[in-house]
């Protein structure tokens, strides 16, 4: 009996101690990154978004992040954030999908934002950017700038997100040079500068003179610069790594979205939703067009404007698969979002087999 009373007193004391603190508690926002924030690319841009939240809402929020979290082992890290009082958690890689859903189920009062995924719950939103819009522009520039007519692509994994980018790049290139050839190399890693550089070198050795990448470090771009060839920046403006080689870069801009979603939590209007923004929503931004003649830059700008205004769709119908068969057109005059998100084929003209 005595022990029970003591216990109750202790609990009461704790409650009193915790009371005033929680009254003025800031909203804790957490981030999980797949690479280091210093990767100059993907994770770096997400961290810019986190900083934007701090800048905009600094007196009402508190942010924290965990970097270099392997996708296979992310559940612990996500749960750790949920357990330590984070009410809004951004998980910023495709492979975090299942772990995010699992933790979200356990913590129904925590709101989750999963990047590039397609599964939603009451407390799980998804968001992504239409990078393929930028890829289409890069493809046009690449085909214009290539002297050999062979352009290259360093990919991470043969997953729909990457494959859609490859197709958009190639369709863009084809639109200005129907005879263009594309070579693709997958390095099976999002982030391994050494291997990314090796992949780029292999492409350059095989006659590629303009390459682009869907991996996260500036290594492929730098490899192109070292050989006096041309390339594109990935995720962030990488011009300082390759002042002579970077033609432009497809920049991910999460700042506006992250601030808006945090505000939504603060004023209680947050709801699970799916956001897929592109050039029009400033989620995808093109870095300045450099190292190219005036007319190519002009073409790029025109294409950018046409995509932004909706006049041009990178995946406008008809789209043909490698075997020549036409892809069913489910999105009116272009492929539907589902078709782009689940893209598992190369378009006609790519002289390579898609690893299944």
């Amino acid at each position: 009996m005595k022990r029970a009373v003591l216990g109750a007193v202790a609990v009461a004391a704790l409650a009193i101690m915790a009371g005033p603190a929680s009254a003025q508690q800031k909203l804790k926002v957490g981030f999980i990154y797949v690479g280091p924030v210093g990767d100059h690319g993907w994770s770096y841009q997400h961290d810019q978004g986190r900083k934007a939240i701090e800048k905009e809402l600094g007196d009402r929020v508190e942010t924290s992040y965990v970097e270099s979290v392997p996708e296979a082992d992310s559940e612990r890290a996500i749960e750790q954030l949920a357990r330590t009082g984070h009410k809004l958690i951004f998980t910023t890689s495709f492979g975090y999908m299942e772990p995010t859903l699992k933790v979200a189920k356990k913590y129904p009062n925590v709101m989750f934002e999963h990047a590039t995924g397609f599964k939603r719950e009451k407390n799980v939103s998804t968001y992504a950017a239409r990078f393929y819009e930028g890829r289409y522009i890069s493809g046009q520039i690449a085909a214009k700038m290539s002297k050999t007519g062979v352009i290259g692509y360093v990919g991470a994994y043969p997953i729909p997100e990457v494959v859609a980018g490859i197709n958009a790049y190639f369709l863009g290139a084809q639109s200005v040079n129907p005879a263009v050839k594309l070579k693709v190399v997958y390095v099976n890693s999002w982030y391994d500068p050494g291997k990314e550089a090796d992949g780029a070198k292999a492409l350059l050795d095989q006659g590629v003179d303009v390459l682009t990448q869907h991996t996260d470090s500036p290594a492929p771009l730098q490899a192109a610069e070292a050989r006096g060839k041309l390339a594109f920046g990935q995720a962030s403006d990488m011009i300082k790594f390759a002042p002579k080689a970077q033609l432009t870069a497809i920049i991910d801009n999460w700042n506006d979205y992250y601030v808006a979603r945090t505000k939504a939590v603060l004023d209680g209007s947050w709801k699970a939703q799916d956001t897929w923004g592109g050039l029009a929503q400033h989620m995808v931004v093109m870095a300045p067009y450099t190292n190219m003649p005036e007319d190519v830059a002009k073409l790029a700008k025109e294409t950018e404007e046409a995509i932004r205004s909706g006049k041009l769709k990178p995946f406008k119908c008809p789209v043909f698969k490698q075997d020549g068969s036409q892809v069913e057109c489910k999105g009116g005059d272009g492929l539907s979002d589902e078709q782009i998100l689940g893209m598992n084929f190369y378009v006609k003209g790519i002289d390579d087999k898609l690893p299944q």
Partner: protein
Amino acid sequence: MSMFEAVLLTIVTASTPLLLAALGELVAERAGVLNLGVEGMMAMGAACGFAGAVVFDSTALGVLSGMIAAVLLASLFAFAVLGLATNQVASGLALTILGLGLAGLIGAPFIGARREPIAHLHIPGLTDLPVVGRLFFGQDAFVYVSLLLALAVAWFLFHTRAGLTLRSVGENHTSAHSLGLPVVRVRLLAIVFGGACAGLSGAYLSLVYTRFWSPGMTAGRGWIALALVVFAAWRPGRAFAGAYLFGAATVLQLHAQAASIGLPSQTLSALPYLATVVALVLLSLGKRRAVGAPGSLGTPFVPDR
């Protein structure tokens, strides 16, 4: 430059960091110390090597900084496993975590900085020879150092008295101790050598392989070096073969993809690991007597006074 030559040149670049780190670890393990901290020491070498090169505006001083940083980290490990006789596996894992973290901290101000390519050997006449010219006479200093180091380690281990001492310390530290051999001192030197090699390998990554620093850029190469030592049965010649085989398979599978030979990229990516394991296992099978690990590998030594 022919395609063949270009491929060979890339293979050398991919193999050199593995060879350097593997040689250092090989010597440490021959002395009976299992240091699982290679990845961490390598990261420190990469971060401090790059930082040093930027601060002093000299690649040589950068390399030196990288090696010193990795040696300091290795000394910490030596203090734990030799001085305090702690568990080597745990201490090594802790060293990797510490090294990766410290490297990130030290390297943070240097993110985004870039360096010019380092000088390559050029001997008029020889370097311009077709095919073999650039391969043999046009490499950077790291490559020549790594090859000389492989020869030097092989000669030291099997043809010098000091090498014999080191191996006996690794085989049976109690007997070595009773013979009056300085077990702790030999191991300390071996660990420091391993640290210097890992630092050199890391500096190669951030100054030559990809000329920038970014956290996590070692991307598991330290672990591959560790595995190479085991599969090479603790022999420098085979470590050389393993490192170059691994490097070659890595580069060739990328070329195979670019040439679209039609094999899935996932299978091709697994190839370097498979090829290296199979080749080194076959090498070991060829020998009559089994080549096992050094007898005292991984066991703490506490002098019995």
